[in-house]
């Protein structure tokens, strides 16, 4: 992937596919380290499947359930000297508290660090494609914080208006961009 924001899009698509009502995308930056967390309350995976999703050789061309997305992301973190963790609780084992959490850290000064890129575009793409799912986005840097919660937007709009409507997507884009400019 050319931008880490594309990995975020790719992994969050898995959360939506896991029927997560809420997917949280939390970016935390210090001067040297970028931490990306993607946390959902979807159907989760059993420990057996979790082990497989990080290994591309287990997963390609058997079932089409999992693919290269997670191995890519893990590699991109580790090539900067960073870390990658995934944990999951399947709905069958934990009916009241299930979902998947991914956390990766990146050393920003490493030569193999891939830039974060257009994360606003990733958030807009997720909302446009999945207007009935909720997303919580927070990006904290040493300078400030950018955040968005589609649950608040949904509440403000009331029922009947899809978050995928052009006017709504445009508003969210400006809302995020303005926060990035002032932070």
């Amino acid at each position, binding site marked *: 992937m050319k931008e880490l924001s594309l990995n975020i899009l790719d992994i969050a*698509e898995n959360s939506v596919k896991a029927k997560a009502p809420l997917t949280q995308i939390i970016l935390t930056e210090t001067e040297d380290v970028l931490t990306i967390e993607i946390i959902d309350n979807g159907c989760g995976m059993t420990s057996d499947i979790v082990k497989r999703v990080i290994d591309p050789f287990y997963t390609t061309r058997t079932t089409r359930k999992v693919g290269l997305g997670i191995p890519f992301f893990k590699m991109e973190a580790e090539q900067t000297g960073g870390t990658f963790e995934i944990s999951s609780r399947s709905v069958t084992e934990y009916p009241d508290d299930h979902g998947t959490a991914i956390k990766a850290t990146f050393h920003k000064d490493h030569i193999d660090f891939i830039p974060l890129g257009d994360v606003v575009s990733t958030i807009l793409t997720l909302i*446009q494609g999945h207007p009935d799912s909720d997303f919580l986005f927070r990006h904290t840097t040493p300078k400030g914080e950018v955040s968005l919660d589609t649950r608040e937007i949904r509440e*403000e709009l009331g029922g009947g208006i899809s978050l995928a409507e052009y*006017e709504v997507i445009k508003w969210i884009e400006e809302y995020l961009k303005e926060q990035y400019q002032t932070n």
Partner: protein
Amino acid sequence: MKSLAELQAIKDKMKDKVVLREGSAQKRVVVGMATCGIAAGARPVLNAFVEGVNKEGLSGEVAVTQTGCIGICQYEPVVEIFEAGKDKVTYVKMTAEKAQRVITEHLKGGKVVTEYTIAAYAK
């Protein structure tokens, strides 16, 4: 500073529009957004369709949606166009620029951009 209260204005403005729109999309643009599509550049292609369809005033008749892996990863970004009563058209190796042409010539003009279709590439 933008505030969530501004959404109220959008809500009021949209009310009539949404009623008009319900179930009226005759054409569906589907962009593949799995790992293969995203890595190949599907995100700007999707955005080009979202922007272009609105700009050309087609949002009442064209719905832009996303899907997972279509199964022809080597041709990504792949865009499929569905229209009632017509065969599905599959565009391959798409870019934002190509999307613009598909919007004006195919979605607006009704003429398939043959050179971007899978049939033209697979030869």
